[in-house]
């Protein structure tokens, strides 16, 4: 899994910047009174039962979509550096359908974005976007539960139905893709700086190794640290119980108190890793890949033998969207293999469209020299197209049944990072 990253820095293919702030450097956003407005003075609960039968889903879909028409425009909110700045895919879309797209990189952080849009959605106001890309998370589960997302009409998603990888139709956070379809996925694994570490780590126990005392970086995100401790203990995070969480927390506390952990990072772990402030850390696959490409570093990323977690950023349409038909047309457009391939060539995250590989290989056949090599490498990369064996090692995050569970989970893991 390491070889794909040995890169000629000249082959930047426009990737001169890495994606800063996917889970954002500072959670500065959102501490606004907006978040409070909802909670002020005894607000009614907004919880809504998820449709249980497919007939019920179908009726909700019909209720929403009947009478909706194409308006010729779509406002699209996404994370920074998640598309080629020249936007070739969107240009192609406008050329073919006549629908214009306003693309804004406004989503910097899961919790911050949620805090921003939640009061507006609660009040039934437009959030100014018809389409957004959001990570599977407690916040996503809440958006679904609170009824803020449009049930997707699969009849309007023929490319999706035809081309999506089978595993993406049964995600624990939205089985059957009632409200969401994937944009891209990434893995959380171990990254290390080979300048300081000679033997590649193969197991999570490396992060508990006293010989790296003070040079280990962990993430501040409760789910991420919990997952790692559970993997180290041989527990499947997605099937874990509160008793497992306690065990994981004890393992993490021991790691912290023995001085092994230097710091709990948000996405800001990449620079310290490159500079040698930390030698080994938790990392998101695409970050390491892009850092190597953009700065010519030689950082390594491994999926440990115990397995790893995969997260997914998903398309979704907020219920107050003004142009839902245009939005769903755009969603489906990204499931054309050629378009999915073109996107993956740039962002280097896992694409939910397996046949995009052929599209990339076809591009490679047409290209020459350095470009050809890069494209070939992307098509072969297990971080863009994981094999079945790779997928078998991947687990999803803990999905909480309710906010009580989530609160309990946070109360167990947050004291570790906020000590």
């Amino acid at each position, binding site marked *: 899994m390491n070889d794909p990253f040995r890169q000629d820095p000249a082959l930047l293919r426009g990737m001169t910047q890495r994606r800063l702030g996917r889970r954002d450097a500072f959670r500065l956003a959102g*501490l606004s009174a907006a978040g409070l407005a909802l*909670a002020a*003075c005894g607000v009614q609960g907004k919880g809504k039962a998820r449709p249980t039968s497919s007939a019920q889903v179908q009726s909700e879909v019909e209720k929403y979509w009947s009478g909706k028409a194409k308006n010729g425009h779509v406002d699209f909110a996404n994370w920074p550096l998640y598309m080629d700045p020249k936007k070739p895919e969107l240009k192609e879309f406008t050329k073919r359908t006549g629908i214009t797209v306003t693309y804004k990189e406004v989503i910097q952080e899961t919790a911050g974005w949620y*805090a921003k849009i939640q009061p507006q959605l609660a009040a039934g106001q437009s959030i100014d976007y018809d389409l957004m890309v959001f990570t599977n998370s407690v916040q996503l589960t809440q958006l679904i539960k609170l009824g803020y997302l449009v049930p997707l009409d699969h009849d309007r998603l023929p490319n999706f139905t035809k081309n999506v990888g089978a595993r993406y139709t049964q995600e624990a956070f939205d089985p059957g893709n009632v409200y969401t379809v994937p944009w891209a996925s990434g893995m959380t694994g171990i990254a290390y700086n080979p300048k300081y570490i000679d033997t590649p780590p193969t197991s999570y126990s490396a992060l508990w190794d006293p010989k790296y005392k003070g040079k280990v970086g962990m993430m501040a995100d409760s789910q991420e640290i919990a997952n790692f401790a559970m993997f180290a203990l041989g527990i499947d995070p997605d099937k874990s119980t509160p008793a497992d969480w306690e065990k994981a927390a004890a393992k993490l506390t021991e790691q912290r108190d023995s001085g092994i952990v230097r710091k709990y990072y948000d996405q800001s772990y990449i620079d310290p890793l490159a500079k040698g*402030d930390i030698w080994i850390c938790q990392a998101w696959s695409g970050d390491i890949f892009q850092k190597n490409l953009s700065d010519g570093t030689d950082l390594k990323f491994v999926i440990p033998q115990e397995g790893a977690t995969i997260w997914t950023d998903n398309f979704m349409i907020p219920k107050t969207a003004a142009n839902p038909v245009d939005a769903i047309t755009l969603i489906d457009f990204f499931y054309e293999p050629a378009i999915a391939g073109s996107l993956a060539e740039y962002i280097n995250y896992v694409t939910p469209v397996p046949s995009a590989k052929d599209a990339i290989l076809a591009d490679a056949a047409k290209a020459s020299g350095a470009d050809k090599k890069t494209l070939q490498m992307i098509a072969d990369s297990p971080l863009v197209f994981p094999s079945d064996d790779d997928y078998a090692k991947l687990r999803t995050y803990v999905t909480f049944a309710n906010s009580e569970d989530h609160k309990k989970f946070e109360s167990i893991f947050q004291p570790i990072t906020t000590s």
Partner: protein
Amino acid sequence: MSRLRAALTPYALIFPGGLWLAIFFVIPMIVMLSLSLQSGSVEDGYAFTFNWHSYADGLANYHDQIIRSLLYGLAATLLQIILGFPVAYWIAFKGGNRKSVYLFLMLLPFLVSFVLRTISWQFLLSDNGILLGPLKDIGLLPDGFRVLATPFAVIAGLAYNFLPFMVLPMYVALERIDPRVLEAAQDLYASRFQTFLRVVLPLSLPGVFAGVLMTFVPATSDYVNASVLGGTNTTMIGNVIQNQYLVTQDYPTASALSFTLMALLLVGIFAYARALGTEDVLEVAAR
């Protein structure tokens, strides 16, 4: 008529600012106070239940972070007085007609974003960076030595980020000292040290007092420095509150912690004002 207008003028003057404060300060405070006494969750809604547990739980779970924040705030404030007083003194008495240039130079770094300045410390103080790298190479520092991810880094960052708010009030107080008072002290055979101790220092205290107020409060509730420069066991209460709001979405606990912090700071400030004798201080300041 003109008498009525004269009577109304002060109210007209206070109206815009008062309205601003009422909308953006008083109302949120009331909402937050109410929130801190509610129980529930985002999905099930919140109800006002006089749930004092949020306060008790907040204190029980996070007293370490509260105490640490107060200590860090105090340490940073002291550091700022030690660093800032000589600077203010020098500009006030030795600045000549370039005083405004020096003040501008001191403020110059603060035209750059607060967050950006703090992040630049990461670069400056990195374990093998431009500062520590050479010192380690020549053997002055052991290999494992680090500044980042230590309490020292957090306190130093706090002191740095709020320094102008300490220097400016002290400068204003010092600048106002009438040179004739100093001459009088010398005429009365005071040594330079005695002049400083018995004339300059007491006259500068209102500035120090204002500086402490303006730096201790924001430093204690800051969360950027701890998250950028800190490591494990350096979390401040600001980080906890921010986490409770955005990550856990436990709004009642977050609000309760905010009010606890505010109460502690108010008590601290009043005690401090008392100890220093506010009346005297204000009197001097008004002169």
